[in-house]
């Protein structure tokens, strides 16, 4: 059985930041990631990030991944286990993980789970036709593997992911026939919307997908206007020929490990679904088990990195590596508040306020 001081589950921006913070405080850290490489969602994010200089604003996601990984590699007290899927955390503190078809065990003294989030699905007829993709999957296909997903896309969702992936589809030489958004307004950053509009892509607010059509794969999509009740208005249906239907309809936190470990959970729609209850140092109701990043609430990479830092510092402090920890965590809390202070942080703030009211069962 592998022993380590701090196990970090998930090697994306939150997990890498947690590992770095804990290691720099002196703790011995092991990162587990189910993929063949570190970086999480960063490895396919070719666009420049927002935030401030501290969160590496202006740098492309792919380069942020490289920077974080280089920093990890220069830490002698961080070990990385790739292609290792953590399966559970038991009452005796043991983590089980699967690698090469074997179940292995690790005994950490504290755990930071930064397992991220996954894409939501939309129910509609023929949503199982080849050619219906999650936007994240299309992004991986294009930006990681260099594979063109098709010739002509209809994108569902005008949040940041829908807008950014539409832009990246254009960069890959794919035609984007339309972006369809059920809400009356564009949900993502308006600068992302402006980029695709000046490339000629129509954004149809108050529209939704009604059905996909095709015999062996997507050949067309039927869209319709929606009324104030969010239901399609009969008679407004329109068919758009395409071979890809891309769904960017929201993410849900990946929280199986928290459920399995017995953490108290709460359903907070503003955070994306069920999330673990935690204190201001991101420790859940299971002592020594911390959460950071999208698993704590769907947000941004910039806040994921800051949350990762908090969780890493707090986990290290719990083991006695607490040099300047109060000041360092306070600085991170201030950074998070600044990121969340504006109008686009309203949803997160309200979700976190609701979470603070939720009582452990």
């Amino acid at each position: 059985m592998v022993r380590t001081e701090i196990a970090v589950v998930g090697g994306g921006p939150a997990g890498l930041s947690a590992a770095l913070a804990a290691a720099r405080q002196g703790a011995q850290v092991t990162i587990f990631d189910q993929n063949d490489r570190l970086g999480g969602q960063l490895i396919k994010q070719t666009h420049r990030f927002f935030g401030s200089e501290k969160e590496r604003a202006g740098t492309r996601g792919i380069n942020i991944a490289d920077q974080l990984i280089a920093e990890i590699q220069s830490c002698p007290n961080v070990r990385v286990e790739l292609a290792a899927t953590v399966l559970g955390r038991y009452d005796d503190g043991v983590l089980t993980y699967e690698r090469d078809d074997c179940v292995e065990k690790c005994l950490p003294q504290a755990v930071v789970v930064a397992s991220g989030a996954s894409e939501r699905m939309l129910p509609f007829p023929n949503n199982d036709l080849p050619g219906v993709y999650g936007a994240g999957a299309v992004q991986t296909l294009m930006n990681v593997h260099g594979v063109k997903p098709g010739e002509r896309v209809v994108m569902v969702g005008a949040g940041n992911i829908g807008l950014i992936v539409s832009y990246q589809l254009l960069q890959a030489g794919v035609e984007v026939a339309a972006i369809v958004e059920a809400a009356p307004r564009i949900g993502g950053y308006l600068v992302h919307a402006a980029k695709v509009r000046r490339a000629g892509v129509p954004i149809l607010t108050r529209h939704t997908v009604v059905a996909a059509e095709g015999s062996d794969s997507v050949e067309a999509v039927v869209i319709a206007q929606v009324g104030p009740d969010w239901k399609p208005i009969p008679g407004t249906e329109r068919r758009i020929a395409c071979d890809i239907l891309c769904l960017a309809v929201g993410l849900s936190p990946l929280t199986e490990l928290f459920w399995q470990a017995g953490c108290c959970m709460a359903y907070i729609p503003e955070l994306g679904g069920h999330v673990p209850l935690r204190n201001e140092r991101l420790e859940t109701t299971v002592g020594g088990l911390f959460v950071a990043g999208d698993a704590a609430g769907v947000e941004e990479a910039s806040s994921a990195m800051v949350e990762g830092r908090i969780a890493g510092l707090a986990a290290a402090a719990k083991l006695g590596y607490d040099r300047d920890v109060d000041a360092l965590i306070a600085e991170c809390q201030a950074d998070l508040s600044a990121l969340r202070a504006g109008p686009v942080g309203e949803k997160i703030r309200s979700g976190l306020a609701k979470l603070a009211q939720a009582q452990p069962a």
Partner: protein
Amino acid sequence: MLEQTGIPTAEDIARVTPSAARRRRGPVAVVECFQKIPCNPCFTACKTGAYKPFADINDLPQIDHEACNGCGICVSHCPGLAIFIVDESGADTDVVRIPYEFLPLPRPGERVIALDRAGEAVGEATVIRVQNAPALDKTNVVWLSVPKGMGMTVRNMKVRR
């Protein structure tokens, strides 16, 4: 409205347009950023101090057009690709420098289709220069010569090949 269409309105643009006198003097940055999001690389990148420091990182950028020398560094640093350099000092043509992240990159001297903020073709432009040094990290800056008076309209291009 911008929130419904993704296209800035005339009122939005008017709020960030430098004075005609300033535009006629030489290149100047037009910062088409209208939404409060946590972001400030424009301020960090600027070497002349033309951008005022951000009291709150969610504030809209405040640029002093008189202090701006139109160097264009901010164009490739803006994550939203929302900054353009406009130069109306020419007699017969305006120059617009746009951030451009598509292939193929145009070549100097090439005639391209000029697009407005809605992606509509509004005529042709001549490519004067293409900046793609490593420091720009693949946000190329394309200098477009457009007909006089089009400097505040052209915001994108399409290669004709």
